[in-house]
């Protein structure tokens, strides 16, 4: 049985003058139909590179070195560039983070949406424009007919992000990748955008791959989460399970760095140290230099991502299995 997206042993590296950057290092995960999967990690953890690898948009000096990316059962890594062009924007689509730089400043938003339709549908010129206006209306842009003939700089940040989403969903994709779609927006707009994506997900029945560094966004929007650290998946679980029983010390660190809603007296804790250099990764566990629990084994041998309880995987020697969990609170 296969999901909507099965990524197996994905390795993506960048061959820079300073050395080989191991941006994504042997990750496997699955995304089911209609599922919203969250990917969380600091900058440089390999979230965006994972997404661009799935889209096959890795450019030189980057290269996908190994693995399989099965999208609806077919390996995207075996597709020609021409075949990929038919898939991108149609079945597999992506929304980027900075809406101002991600839209062409010299084309109206309507023209940019219509152009995607031109490449994937047989609609007439007029029908494409009409559809573009409909899409702008569908993502909640007021006066869509007027806005369609506006240039990106004439729209607000929230509206631009909606336009970018309208463009990405214009051909009813099966999988929508969102790369930190709300980083440039303020909180109220952020909430509106996620509400919108949630509605669209229901309406079109698409899978969503949401990249973010914000665990609270994931909690409200996704059913499952992957935590990435230094190019590797370090933990994967259902959202509730992850919040209730985080296994990896890094995940626990991330959760401690979210301000609590009630009784916000306790000081927020940050994770000491920095993300390791992806060119010179430490031996053993990548997180060991920052980990309070690390011992001899962690410094020397790299832990595999393995199932601790059903549906909950972690890559940590010190991950506690429930049976041996001391100091639990049941």
């Amino acid at each position, binding site marked *: 049985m296969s999901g909507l997206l099965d990524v197996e042993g994905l390795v993506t590296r960048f061959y820079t003058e300073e050395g080989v950057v191991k941006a994504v290092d042997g990750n496997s995960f699955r995304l089911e139909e209609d599922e919203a999967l969250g990917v969380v990690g600091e900058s440089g953890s390999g979230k965006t590179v994972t997404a661009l690898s799935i889209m096959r*948009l890795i450019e030189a000096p980057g290269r996908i070195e190994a693995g399989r990316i099965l999208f609806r059962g077919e390996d995207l890594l075996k597709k020609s560039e021409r075949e990929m062009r038919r*898939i991108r924007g149609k079945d597999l689509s992506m929304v980027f983070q900075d809406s101002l730089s991600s839209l062409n400043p010299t*084309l109206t938003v309507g023209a940019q949406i219509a152009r995607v339709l031109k490449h*994937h549908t047989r609609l007439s010129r007029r029908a494409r424009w009409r559809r573009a206006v409909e899409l702008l209306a569908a993502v909640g842009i007021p006066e869509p007919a007027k806005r369609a003939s506006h240039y990106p700089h004439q729209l607000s940040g929230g509206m631009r992000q909606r336009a970018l989403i309208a463009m990405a969903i214009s051909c009813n994709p099966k999988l929508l990748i969102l790369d930190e779609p709300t980083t440039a927006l303020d909180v109220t707009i952020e909430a509106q955008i996620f509400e919108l994506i949630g509605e669209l997900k229901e309406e079109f029945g698409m899978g969503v791959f949401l990249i973010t560094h914000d665990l609270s966004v994931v909690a409200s929007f996704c059913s499952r989460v992957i935590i990435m650290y230094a190019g590797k998946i370090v933990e994967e679980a259902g959202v509730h399970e992850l919040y209730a029983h985080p296994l990896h010390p890094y995940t626990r660190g991330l959760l401690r760095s979210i301000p609590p809603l009630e009784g916000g007296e306790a000081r927020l804790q940050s994770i000491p140290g920095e993300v390791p250099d992806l060119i010179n990764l430490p031996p053993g566990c990548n997180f060991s230099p920052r980990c309070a629990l690390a011992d001899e084994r962690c410094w020397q041998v790299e832990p595999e991502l393995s199932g601790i309880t059903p549906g909950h995987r972690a890559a940590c020697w010190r991950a506690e299995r429930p049976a041996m969990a001391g100091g639990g609170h049941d």
Partner: protein
Amino acid sequence: MIVFLSKRLLLAIPTLLVASFLIFSLVHIAPGDPIQVMLGDFQDPELIARLRHEMGLDLPLLQQYFHWLGNIVRGDLGISITVQRGASVTDLILQRFAVTVELAFFSLIIALLIAIPTGIISALRQNKLSDHLSRIIALLGVSIPNFFLGILLILFVGVYLRKPWGAGGYVPLSRGLLKNLAHMFLPAVALGTAYAAIIMRMMRSAMLDAMSQDFVRTARAMGIAPADIVRRDIVKNALIPVVTVIGNSIGYLLGGSIVTETVFRLPGMGNLVIMGVFRRDFPVIQAVVLIIVVVRIAVNLIVDLTYGFLDPRIRYGGER
């Protein structure tokens, strides 16, 4: 739009005033005067004084300046002293203006025809053989002075190949468009080559810049065909800075035409100003240089208007 235009035109007035003052002072600071040139070996002090008085050259400089300025405002560019004694400078310029404009325009077209396509190809095939080749040629193009290229062209086409249109000289339009253009071809190439090289390099770097923009990645992520991405995402955005460079270096074309016209014996404004300088014909020099300044200001304005047309982020008159 109209507000923008009138604002710019108003701003041009002080620019022109300053320019006219600079031109006037520089011409008069330079040693020698037209009377000396006119009289040649026969330097009779009394005659010199009389002629200077007749032409108002003995008045204080500032008074001469305002007198000249006053005439210009009334559309009178003055009377030539030595180039063609007694002829109105306006007539002299009118006779020659078309030649210079034709040369500049022809050079511009040749430059753009060479520069834009090579710049695009060079950027799209970055660090490949065709990119290296066009960059080397561009470097040569900028490095060779246009008068030298002109001489080489005359030597090769005119002297070696013995083509009648390759030896310089001007054929007026009345004797046939083809003949006229044929004689203009080599001067335009000589003048346009260096210009082409400048634009080509600018186009290449603007293309590379546009290619690394996020919206290009968005277009790729939407499955847009490469040809469409090159046309509407890359070239369209790359042209914005290039148009500014094109406009700003129109001055280069006008300046270069002075030398080129001399090499190819073209009776243009450059040729006129050179004669004016040699013979210290103050009214001629002043008028030609002033007209070049006016043309530059006009071209800059046109470029700014084009810029707004290419880049929707710039809109004049405050409408959003």
